[in-house]
């Protein structure tokens, strides 16, 4: 097993890194390249950049900053947002991204996952899943979450969608538990455990990190391969090097 990964997530809008609470009220937290370098230096294992407004507005990822990041960063990074075709993915990968992540466009047209896996190999293809528990107790998928006014609740259950995405050629799943996102009360361990059961590829936990113990819980109780967080890193609440020390002491294998 590879080391468990710590992944800062940089939500990008208009060339800046932003962060909102519960997907709303986004505030600028810094420049893309500056934050990427800072997290690399602190020991981040990978970076994810989400262009959070791209899908709802039909925009494409601006390749300019992808190339700027690729020039300076020597750890892997993934780009998400507005990738809705093999050609769109090719542009981002050619600009230097290691992986591309699709979310809403894959829900619109699930064949996109198959096409991307065929064109680039499953190792490049990440499927992001935004999930929320409905009143009937079932986790279901949400679409267009970058813009609260356009977010849609779908009939698809999260577990069925994750299994289908893996069958179609997803090489990794990022599960964003929207009910816990931004409120720092811990990852949704119950939901992650359930998804872990149906997910044979690497699984990334997202949404809810507030303290180092939340990361330990996700790795030890939900067996996730990586844990993604944004606000606790941007705000400096958790320093990645301190977090990794605590994980190591808790017996979680972490890259030195």
């Amino acid at each position: 097993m590879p080391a468990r990964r710590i992944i800062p997530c940089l939500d990008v809008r208009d060339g800046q890194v932003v962060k909102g609470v519960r997907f709303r009220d986004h505030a600028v937290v810094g420049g893309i390249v500056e934050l990427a370098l800072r997290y690399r230096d602190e020991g981040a294992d990978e970076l994810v950049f989400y262009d959070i407004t791209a899908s709802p507005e039909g925009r494409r990822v601006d390749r300019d900053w992808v190339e700027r990041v690729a020039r300076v960063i020597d750890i892997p990074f993934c780009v998400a947002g507005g990738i809705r075709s093999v050609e769109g993915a090719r542009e981002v990968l050619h600009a230097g991204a290691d992986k591309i992540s699709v979310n809403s466009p894959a829900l619109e047209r699930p064949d996109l996952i198959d096409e991307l896996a065929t064109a680039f190999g499953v190792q490049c293809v990440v499927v992001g899943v935004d999930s929320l528990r409905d009143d009937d107790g079932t986790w279901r998928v949400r679409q267009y979450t970058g813009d609260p006014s356009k977010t849609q609740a779908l009939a698809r259950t999260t577990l069925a969608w994750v299994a289908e995405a893996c069958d179609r050629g997803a090489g990794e799943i990022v599960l964003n538990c929207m009910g816990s996102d931004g409120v720092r009360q811990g990852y949704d361990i119950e939901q992650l455990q359930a998804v872990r059961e149906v997910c044979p590829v690497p699984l990334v936990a997202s949404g809810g990190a507030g303290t180092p113990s939340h990361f330990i819980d996700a790795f030890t109780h939900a067996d996730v391969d990586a844990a993604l967080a944004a606000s606790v890193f941007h705000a400096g609440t958790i320093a990645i090097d301190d977090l990794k020390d605590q994980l190591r002491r808790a017996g979680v294998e972490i890259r030195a």
Partner: protein
Amino acid sequence: MADVVLVDAGGTNIGSVRYALLRLGAEAELTADPERIRAASHVILPGVGAAPPGMARLREANLVQVLRGLAQPVLGVCLGMQLLCESSDEGDTLCLGVVPGRARRFTATPGLRIPHMGWTTLQPTQPHPLLRGIGEDAWTYFVHSFALPAGEHTLATSTHGEPFSAVIGRGNFFGMQFHPERSARTGARLLANFLDL
């Protein structure tokens, strides 16, 4: 200074290898021109994706015999390393055959995630200038579903379920299954070592 070229037969992710070399001060030219490749001091064959289209692109670019005939140091990265082997399980593909062996798919085992994606340590198995300065705690970044079993030409192994070839070398042909361009300090050191060969 090394005159390094990156073989660009139309695959993806050429850019990040080129940037990693730039960070080491080496300006690598992207080329599919046989004469330019033959004239280089060092040749890197990158590759992301699947073996069948990877070999198809090399055939279409008339590079199969060119690459086989090179005498200067040649480095295959990730899929590029598998293309140096005799064959791959992936699409039952015949590869360049400059290093013996066949890339095999990881065996599905409960708890073993495929693809092997993430940071794993290297275990050097024989001393080699390519591995100078690389200890047992050297972390490198992998993303792959196929791997060459450990064998005579293995210079370092990593383990995902079972040990496999992470670094190979036979004569002037070398391969790294991980992505040195995305393996932080360890990756930079390995690329610098390659350019020093």
